[in-house]
């Protein structure tokens, strides 16, 4: 987390989880970055990341994706896994963050 700050990058997590669930996860995992709640997958849809009926009880969730977005809201780096088991690694994202000018 401090390393991301040193690179001038603020991580933000987005999912369909309700704020309470995000809080539980943040406490459990020790996350200090904002975790945003998109329960109706409205923003997830806007980003074309909807994975229909893939959640528990068959509700819609986000497909995993990472975007590095600069201050003009332009995408500078992306990562879309092809396998949900292969998760984005902090060192990959940090390397991308450090390459920003």
């Amino acid at each position, binding site marked *: 987390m401090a390393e991301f700050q040193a690179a001038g*990058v603020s*991580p933000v997590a987005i999912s369909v989880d309700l704020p309470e669930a995000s809080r*539980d996860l943040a406490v459990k995992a020790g996350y200090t970055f904002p975790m945003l709640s998109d329960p109706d997958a409205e923003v997830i849809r806007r980003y074309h990341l909807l994975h229909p009926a893939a959640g528990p009880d068959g509700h819609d969730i986000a497909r995993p994706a990472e975007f590095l*977005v600069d201050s003009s809201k332009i995408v500078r780096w992306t990562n879309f896994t092809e396998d*949900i088991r292969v998760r984005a690694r902090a060192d990959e994202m940090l390397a991308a963050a450090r390459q920003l000018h």
Partner: protein
Amino acid sequence: MPQTTERRRNVAPWWGLLFAIGAIVCNLVLFLVSLSWQGMLPWLSLLCAILALIFLVVGLLRAFAQAHIYRGRVLSVVLTVVSVLPIGLTAFAFVTARRLPNSVAVPQVGQRVPDFTLSDSSGKQVSLDQLLAPASTGSQAPAPKAVLLIFYRGYW
């Protein structure tokens, strides 16, 4: 019957079991740790499952179709039954984990991302503009150069 006592050992089912365990280990490693070569692990798990199947079939064929040469009828059946579950789970995990929507409309490098306002874990509304603005709490903190938007499947 001298050849009954001279029948060869049938080790193929043991290799089958070993590869079936290997396939499960690959999945566990994916689940538990994050490695730089983790992208290969799903393929490695699939390879292990395929090798396990091949060895188990060879083991069964030897035990039953070449019973005059090989021993291990009971062994090959038992080890095959034991290995079926890990092999099946590995194949199932491989298929389901990779069934991801592939939208061409996803924002790409160089494109502008849509704005949003969502509530954070304390229920406070947060917009993309706010995320890109200097932090209000840390007084002398400069505006971030970028934000890293991490969309995830959720926690359950």
